[in-house]
């Protein structure tokens, strides 16, 4: 499966270029190659490929990247609707 773009225009990913020191870590950890290097700092390439895993934001030493991380799992989202964020989990569904 080559094209792994999901719904367009939903990702919460943001990059504050002014904080970026060009360490490249984000380009190594992103599993969808969303982040690229240009002119010595990171840039967001195809934002719609971002699955909001949070790897880049967690590993950016400059806190230049921000994203609301989570699991893209319908069973989980359903539970957050009905039971609230704390009680929700993937449980026995196919998520994990």
């Amino acid at each position: 499966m080559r094209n792994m773009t999901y719904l367009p225009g939903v990702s919460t990913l943001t990059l504050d270029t002014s904080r970026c020191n060009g360490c490249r870590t984000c380009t190594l950890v992103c599993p969808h190659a969303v982040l690229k290097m240009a002119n010595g700092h990171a840039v967001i390439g195809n934002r719609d490929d971002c699955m909001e895993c949070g790897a880049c934001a967690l590993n950016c030493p400059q806190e230049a990247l921000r994203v609301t991380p989570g699991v893209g799992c319908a069973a989980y989202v359903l539970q957050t609707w009905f039971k609230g964020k704390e009680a929700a989990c993937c449980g026995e569904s196919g998520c994990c």
Partner: protein
Amino acid sequence: MKNDHKAAMSGERLRLTPGIKDTRPHLPYRAVPGILPEVPREKTDACCGTPSGLMTPPSLTSGDAPYGHCLQGHVPSPVGPVPRLSTRLTARDYWGGLKVRLGLGRDRYAMPAGLYAVGRPGPRSPVLVTANYKLTVDALRTELSTHDAWILALDTNGINVWCAAGKGTFATDELVHRLKASRLDQVVTHRKLVLPQLGASGVAGHRVKQRTGFQVIWGPIRARDLPAFLKNPQKTPPSMRRMSFTLKERITLVPVEISAAFRPAAWSLGMAMLMALLLGMAGPAPFKTVLHTMLLGVTATVVGLLSGAVLTPILLPWIPGRAFALKGAFLGLAAAFISLLAVYPDMTVETSIALTMMTIATSSFLAMNFTGATPFTSPSGVEREMRWAIPAQALVVTIGLIGWLQAVWAG
């Protein structure tokens, strides 16, 4: 299955009850408590599925434990002998893996967390960090058959790296804790750890460095790329760093999808059948016709289940639409159409439409649930699609059910 397992485990526990002497203190690595692979922690969050009692204390030499046969003696180290992993899988590994993949038995399949060795590692050998999910450890040890390396298995409750990183068990704190507990700083002279790239959503490399002095190096996503990566860590081709979702990977997910869908599906079907039976008995239609129409309802649901939980995962990239609920609905429509022609051609138009709606709703819902198993759906996206899909599915299934119940009643 789970009960069998419980029985087996309680058998093991029997042997370790007080009075009957615990044999573990006599094992050689008991002399170095810090390095002893730790028993998987009893799960604390009750919602995550494992029946309690599954995590009874394992003994590393026990032939009953699911991993005892993976060990091949010990390797000496400055802090004492370290259990050595065999790099060959045995029939038991394949059987255990198959059971897990088919969704039979336990859904957590754990090795004790801690330090292991493959080959004959020394103070300069690489350290590979992984989860204590047995299938992950299996993949790792078989890929490393010609290598000498240390393997540090974090306690992720027997869940794979990707899911554990998302759940916060493959995490910075656990890594720091496990590093100290296994006294890795005395085992190796270098200060580098290779972590699987998919662990990056749980572990902050720079924090690990601050807290322990160990530098995190992000390895490839897949274990099979490790030999190439270890040969040349500086140069990883982009393909090593990209998530894949091949036909094979999607097919292996099908049994899990089915077993996840089975219980809720059987439950709601049972309820619907009960309602239909009562209605049918009260109505004017002869019993045989009632049964026939009821069976059509079962067929429609099963077709929806096959379409949503089997065909959608397999055909995913080729089904039109981006939202999974939409993909499932499309496929459900096609499947309903085919089964209308094949199974219930003599139906009235109203009944056919009702049955089609039941199939579409089932298929759409299950396809939407498949988002949880894919490696590219963002939570924002899933929530976005669910906001319209859930009400739509509820509406469609309600109309379908009413139409079908009406047909059961009228015959």
